[in-house]
């Protein structure tokens, strides 16, 4: 502390330590605030159409699922002082002979408590929904809403709500 530069260095060093300790305490106490989230998924309609892939080296015939769904969610209890934003996404989960598949078909970012209670009606899937086998024959899926709480400081929290019932894929229609 004997010179100006020493004092600048000392103040800055203590500042970084204090900020680090503050972030650690905030992160450690965040779990006190999280509450129950309520979600409901209902699929209105599933259409399966035949198309062709637009990959660089392949234009094989492929079945695409087109969804229409409603969502009811109330995620306001997940917003506390350490919540930066919520990442909410709809996952279609189905089994094929090879493996269990989970596909994200729709997502949304929620940045404020006022945006966290919504009734979504007649939404379509944002992303292509297709299976590597090329077909949804003899497959049925359940749909559930997942969310990821992104804090300002601390660990990410991943959770999901109740799944919808099992919904079959109809036979593919030619476009």
């Amino acid at each position: 502390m004997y010179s100006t530069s020493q004092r600048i260095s000392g103040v800055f060093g203590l500042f970084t330590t204090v900020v680090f300790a503050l972030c650690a305490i905030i992160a450690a106490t965040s779990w006190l605030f999280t509450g129950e989230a309520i979600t409901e998924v209902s699929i209105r309609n599933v259409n399966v159409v035949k198309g062709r892939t637009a990959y660089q080296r392949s234009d094989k015939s492929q079945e695409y699922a087109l969804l229409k769904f409603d969502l009811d969610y109330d995620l306001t209890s997940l917003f506390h002082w350490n919540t930066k934003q919520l990442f909410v996404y709809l996952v279609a989960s189905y089994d094929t002979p090879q493996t269990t598949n989970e596909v994200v078909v729709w997502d949304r970012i929620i940045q404020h408590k006022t945006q966290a209670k919504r009734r979504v009606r007649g939404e379509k899937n944002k992303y292509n929904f297709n299976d590597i086998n090329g077909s949804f024959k003899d497959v049925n899926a359940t749909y559930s809403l997942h969310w990821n709480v992104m804090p300002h400081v601390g660990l990410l929290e991943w959770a999901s709500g109740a799944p919808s019932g099992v919904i079959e894929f109809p036979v593919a229609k030619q476009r």
Partner: protein
Amino acid sequence: MESIVNTVVQGSIDFHGQRLADTLTQAILIISALVGFIVGFALQDIRYTVFSTLVGVGIAVLIVVPPWPFYTAHPVKFQASQKKAAALTVEEKKEERKGAKIVYKS
């Protein structure tokens, strides 16, 4: 003008001042972080915490970094030069130990 720039850039302060500066940085930074945490926790808004901590750093820099006069209020009292002490006779040294003041001839 040059001596003012020199004083500020060098920023030498005495030992009492250094201890004071150290104590002040700790007090200001920790209290501003604590107050920010409590207010943010109570109002559930992290912006208060961030703002309070940053204001605390600003205040700490303003109070501690420049060499204010109250940091140089206890300058170190140095002894007289050794050359002059060597020139004293034995009697004069005895008298000085008793507490009499001796006028030094340079």
